[in-house]
């Protein structure tokens, strides 16, 4: 089907607030202590392989992968393991975390050496060792994406540089400050996958990133740097696949099922860095911003650093913060306290003042249809709300609440300030329970 005939997906115009777009990444000094959770990815927790009292160095394995869909975890500072203890993650679950007291040296582990990569299988293996997960926010182990049995399947390689969330500029800075890694990484993976085309999708509010990458790829006919309108959620996986390749990922299927391998641009840069240096994922580029932050910055932070230490590095708070976030304001999760650690998939931490943190009062739905007309997945939130209130699993299935990617476009435009995303999260649990009960009845 010709692209021009495709019906455009809807979305919302969110404020950009990319205040830190021109700020080069700065590395913060080693924190006194890091807290590294064994779960920073989707899948099985990693298994700790260090004991309290043990000395570790930067890049040393501290927890090994707990299964096929899992990822290993490495020390991000040099120092002494103090304890291994359960902490509460931002999703409310408990998981063991490794507490390391830093010696301030940041001495790299002696065993660091670039992996030998000659084939796609080598690459998938190397990525598995590197501990890299989907750094765009999802945290899905990247090695699983690259474990492709039939290479003919991969028709398109899509690189996600859309960065549609307000405030966040860490992908922008990756494209500008680590252009070499992005370029070499894209070429390397394209060499293995041999796709028909490589698309790099970037919202056109990042002209410098677009120009930088176009310049570098001007002789590479495989690579198309696509400037996309800034329409949230442009960087949603299914949205970007549709807007670059024109393909629709059917429900319950993966991008590879429609011939697409898709990866965030920061994930890609980190893979290339690992292949060239052998240093696993121990450091993250994090945008620090929000109305309560004194000096917004893009900071290179050791994974496991407490968010309080990172805010401190950015001049502390100029106003009393009311809400802290991992990630952007559209999909980010609230951080309960300043001791919460920076995770692998943390691309921003934001702090809002009391005024910006206040929740709007919920009023009755007036059926304005904004949610219906802005949903990129073309779902019907009022119908889902009705089914949810009646605890009607069959209807929740009919209205495909499981297709909701929780982008928050609906809640953003709702004049009644209905908690639509929250309702959909709960409705998905309700749907799963209903499906299980139906299954049991059949058996």
């Amino acid at each position: 089907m010709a692209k021009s005939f495709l019906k455009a997906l809807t979305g919302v115009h969110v404020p950009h607030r990319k205040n830190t777009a021109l700020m080069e990444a700065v590395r913060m000094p080693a924190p006194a202590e890091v807290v590294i959770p064994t779960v920073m990815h989707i899948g099985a927790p990693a298994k700790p392989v260090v004991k309290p009292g043990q000395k570790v160095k930067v890049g040393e394995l501290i927890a090994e992968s707990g299964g096929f869909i899992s990822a290993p975890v490495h020390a991000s500072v040099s120092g002494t393991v103090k304890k291994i203890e359960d902490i509460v993650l931002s999703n409310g679950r408990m998981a063991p975390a490794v507490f390391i007291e830093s010696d301030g040296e940041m001495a790299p582990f002696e065993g660091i050496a670039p992996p030998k990569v000659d084939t796609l299988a080598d690459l998938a293996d190397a990525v598995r060792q590197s501990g890299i997960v989907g750094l765009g926010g999802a945290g899905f182990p990247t090695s699983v994406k690259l474990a492709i049995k039939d290479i003919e399947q991969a028709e398109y390689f899509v690189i996600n540089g859309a960065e549609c969330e307000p405030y966040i500029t860490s992908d922008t800075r990756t494209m500008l400050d680590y252009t070499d890694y992005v370029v070499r990484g894209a070429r390397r993976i394209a060499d293995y996958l041999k796709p028909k085309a490589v698309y790099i999708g970037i919202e056109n509010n990042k002209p410098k990133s677009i120009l930088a990458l176009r310049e570098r790829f001007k002789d590479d006919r495989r690579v198309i740097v696509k400037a996309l309108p800034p329409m949230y959620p442009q960087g949603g996986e299914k949205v970007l696949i549709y807007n670059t390749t024109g393909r629709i990922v059917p429900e319950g299927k993966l991008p590879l099922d429609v011939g697409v391998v898709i990866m965030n641009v920061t994930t890609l840069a980190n893979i290339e860095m690992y292949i060239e240096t052998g240093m696993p994922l121990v450091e993250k580029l994090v945008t620090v911003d929000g109305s309560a932050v004194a000096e917004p910055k893009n900071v290179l932070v050791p994974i496991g650093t407490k968010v309080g230490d990172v805010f401190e590095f950015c001049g502390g708070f100029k106003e009393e913060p009311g809400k802290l976030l991992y990630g952007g304001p559209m999909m980010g999760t609230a951080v309960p306290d300043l001791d919460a650690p920076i995770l692998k998939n943390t691309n921003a931490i934001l702090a809002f003042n009391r005024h910006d943190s206040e929740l709007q009062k919920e009023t009755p739905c007036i059926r304005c249809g904004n949610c219906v007309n802005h949903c990129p997945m073309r779902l019907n939130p009022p119908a889902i709300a009705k089914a949810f209130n009646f605890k009607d699993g069959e209807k929740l299935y009919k209205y495909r609440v499981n297709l909701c990617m929780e982008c928050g476009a609906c809640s953003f435009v709702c004049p009644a300030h209905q908690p639509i995303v929250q309702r959909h999260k709960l409705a998905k649990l309700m749907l799963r329970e209903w499906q299980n009960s139906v299954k049991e009845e059949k058996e």
Partner: protein
Amino acid sequence: MMEQTDSGKFIVSVSPHINSGRTTRGIMLDVIIALLPALIAGCVIFGLRALLVVCVCVASCLVGETLFNLATKRPQTAGDLSAVVTGLILGMNLPASVGIYPAIVGSLFAIVVVKCLFGGLGKNFANPAATARVFMLIAFTETMSSTAAIRIAADAVASPTPLAVLEGAEGKLPSIVDMLLGLRGGAIGETCAVALLLGFLYLLIRRVITLHTPVVYVGVVFLLSWALDGSVTQALYQVLSGGLLIGAIFMATDYVTTPTTNLGKCIFALGCGLLTVLIRRLGAYPEGVSFSILLMNLFTGFIDKASAKKPLGEVKA
């Protein structure tokens, strides 16, 4: 259902953490602003009595809603301004010569019976103003079909509405320019096409409504009248007379009682247009706008179902 929890110091709530800044109250305020040009025009054309009628309607709606909430121990909702919008639209749909008591009864009917008894804002299936107007046409036929004199015309006499003239009543048809300016018999807010279009433009710019409903509704009435009468002038009179413009711009676009998708809105407007022409030509009443909107309100649920979008990537089981 769900509220923020203060865990220690920081607020923890589910994403998103920002919103567009739009509120129900803000939307209602926009509708009120959009109605003002037509209200002012109505007061200029029909005199201060028109202002009195509209004020009585707005006040009755506010008092009715407040008393209902008090009696049923519900939180007060007058602050969302939706009762003001209902009062304004109903008042502007009445002739300036209407009796004050019928106006009060009609307003209370709109707010209490049509809106509050069905669960308040967002739950009513029928447009309160349209329903109340139909109710008043039946209950207070005499005062509702009275006509007020046009104050600023040279010969300040009460003249029959153009629709009545088009149907064969004694009287002179005003010129098209007079029709545009609203110098004709009719309800307070329905006559001045220019003022109504100004409000329409404002609602479009503020993105409160989309083009779909008004354009399709008025378009269908125009084309169908043109096809049946074979005269463009006649069709133009059909569009400019009666309550078609105020109905198409302000009543058929009511969020609560009309479909949500753009396709649904077009189907709804098509139905309104067909019914309006049908009632005007064949019905006992000269005007059919309120009736057709009310009738189409009944179909909103079905239209919503029929015009639902297919989820992206949906796989039928």
